[in-house]
């Protein structure tokens, strides 16, 4: 198991390095010189050259990449030339908001989606299963910004139960501000998880070892929740790992609609400004968090399934 974990972490590091390098190259392939954008159309060539030098853009690409990694390892993600603040500081100030939002979104969708999937799989084609199926597909089909806007209109504006915008102050305030964004972010995942768990549970229930366990007198409870669910949950864990990664930048809609600080919004603004240091910094952080999430989900799967431990 330890060998598996170490190998998996090694692989994760390689993925992060490759992804960040690729990203650095891609951003520089996009037309539009950041210095020109920042200084405006009337900048003199001297000013542009000066800014290039300050941002390290005058050096050859490989040197830029290597020095970028060097600085990253020492905790320096560069300086945001617009705000004249260190990028690392800006990111750290918003990361908790995103992590909490993603965490809360996934947590409630797991808490509802998995039991819903199990319930449906144990009563296939019952009316409850059919209703759950229709709802799940509806949840998946609804775009997050639509859910967000309607949730905002109904619960915040019309009913006034929850605050309209912002991140909130203090624990209770933050929690209060978290409810609607987390609902928005997690709703589609309830549907995904319910469908995935239902499908894989039905598949596992049809496997020979389930009949074998029943033939040896194991009660339904043990068969369903220890023998079947443990296998059926594996694809859901994988999907959640990828989902957390996708949500880190995908929560941008929720963050914009509810005017919450967060990584998604930061990337959105940074891209608009062609704010290279900030883009690189945020993408580096989201990529790392993405890889951490998928690595964790793989490790959880390896804990659940001994056969996975021996692969890789």
């Amino acid at each position, binding site marked *: 198991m330890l060998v598996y974990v170490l190998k998996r972490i090694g692989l994760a590091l390689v993925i992060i390095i490759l992804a960040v390098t690729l990203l650095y190259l891609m951003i520089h392939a996009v037309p539009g010189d950041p210095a020109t954008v920042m200084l405006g159309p009337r900048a003199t060539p001297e000013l542009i050259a000066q800014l290039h030098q300050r941002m390290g853009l005058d050096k050859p690409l490989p040197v830029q990449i290597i020095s970028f990694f060097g600085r990253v390892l020492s905790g320096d993600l560069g300086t945001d030339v617009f705000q004249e603040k260190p990028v690392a500081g800006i990111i750290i100030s918003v990361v908790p908001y995103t992590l909490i939002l993603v965490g809360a979104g996934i947590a409630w969708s797991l808490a509802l989606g998995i039991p819903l999937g199990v319930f449906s799989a144990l009563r296939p084609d019952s009316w409850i299963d059919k209703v759950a199926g229709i709802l799940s597909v509806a949840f998946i089909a609804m775009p997050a910004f639509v859910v967000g806007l309607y949730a905002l209109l109904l619960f915040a504006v019309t009913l006034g139960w929850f605050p309209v915008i912002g991140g909130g102050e203090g624990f209770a305030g933050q929690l209060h501000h978290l409810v609607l964004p987390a609902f928005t972010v997690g709703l589609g995942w309830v549907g995904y998880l319910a469908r995935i768990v239902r499908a894989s549970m039905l598949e596992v229930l049809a*496997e*020979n*070892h389930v*009949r*074998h*366990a*029943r*033939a*040896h*007198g*194991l*009660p*339904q409870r*043990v068969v369903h929740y*220890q*023998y079947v669910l*443990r*296998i059926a949950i594996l694809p859901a864990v994988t999907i959640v790992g990828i989902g957390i990664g996708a949500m880190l930048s995908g929560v941008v809609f929720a963050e914009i609609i509810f005017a919450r600080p967060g990584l998604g919004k930061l990337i959105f603004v940074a891209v608009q400004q062609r704010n290279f240091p900030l883009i690189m910094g945020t993408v580096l952080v989201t990529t790392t968090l993405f890889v951490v999430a998928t690595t964790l989900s793989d490790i959880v799967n390896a804990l*659940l*399934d*001994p*056969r996975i431990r021996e692969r890789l």
Partner: protein
Amino acid sequence: MLSDPVLQIRNLSVEFSARKRTIRALRNIDLDIPRGGTVGVVGESGCGKSTLILSIMRLLAPNSKIVSGDIVFEDRSLFELTEREMQSVRGNEISMIFQDPLTSLNPVISVGQQLIDVQYRDSVAKKVKQQRAIDALSQVGIPDAEARLSSFPHQFSGGMRQRIAIAMTMIEEPILLIADEPTTALDATLEVQIIRELKELQKQSRCSILFVSHHLGVVADLCDYVVVMYAGEIVEQGPVRDLFYNVRHPYAQKLLECDPARIVRSAEKKFPTIPGDLPDLGNLPGGCIFSNRCHSAFDKCETHSPRRTEVSTGHSVSCHLY
């Protein structure tokens, strides 16, 4: 039929509904399993052997229906038990070994835990259950049993996994053991060893065995009573020597002719086959079920179903010839 049976199946008929058709999988099965005896069930694929077993275990698929009949086990009708009561019969009084050892153990739960889980109903300490698991594993010839408790099924070979399945039934000390082609998925040398384990198990626990197999040689070796099934009916049944030496039903005769051991000994060395196919169980013809493939069929066979006739003590056949 026989005195003091452990299990009595009376007039059992089972149907499946599949795509708006009704498949009459089992029809009017009568079968006794004597205490401490071994009954072999033979027949080609699709003749209802597995349905028969799953009816006894009450593990039939939800689309199946027991149309008539009863199964009485130790003076209780199994069909009248609640699901909870049935759970305490399974793996306790009636235990089962399945055909494919590669898929019958749970892949993500350690072998030790699975051996402990089958003792679910026993209220003894976990230590005791674990010791029983170790003892059973060593008994079926798994070396270093204690260390291997934490191993998972995929870390064992097919033969080893079937031994683990046998170890489970050993722990359970059943009154009746049902073995559904326990050696079909294994190679010939393993087959001999597994049969030996089963004999050993029976000697120790004095359980009755219902043994389902394609392999007539193994049936002749292990069983003292044989049942021949064809297309969901029992066509002939009797004591093993009587049936093998005085086989009556044309289908059973053909089946015995197909035994490879006989073919090798014969001069022709040509593999005999039974011409024709199984009748459509969704649309049964009238008369004898085997009449369309039978070499000695006559007019009556096409119109009247044969009744069961006893030809000698305990040996009965359903055929118009007798």
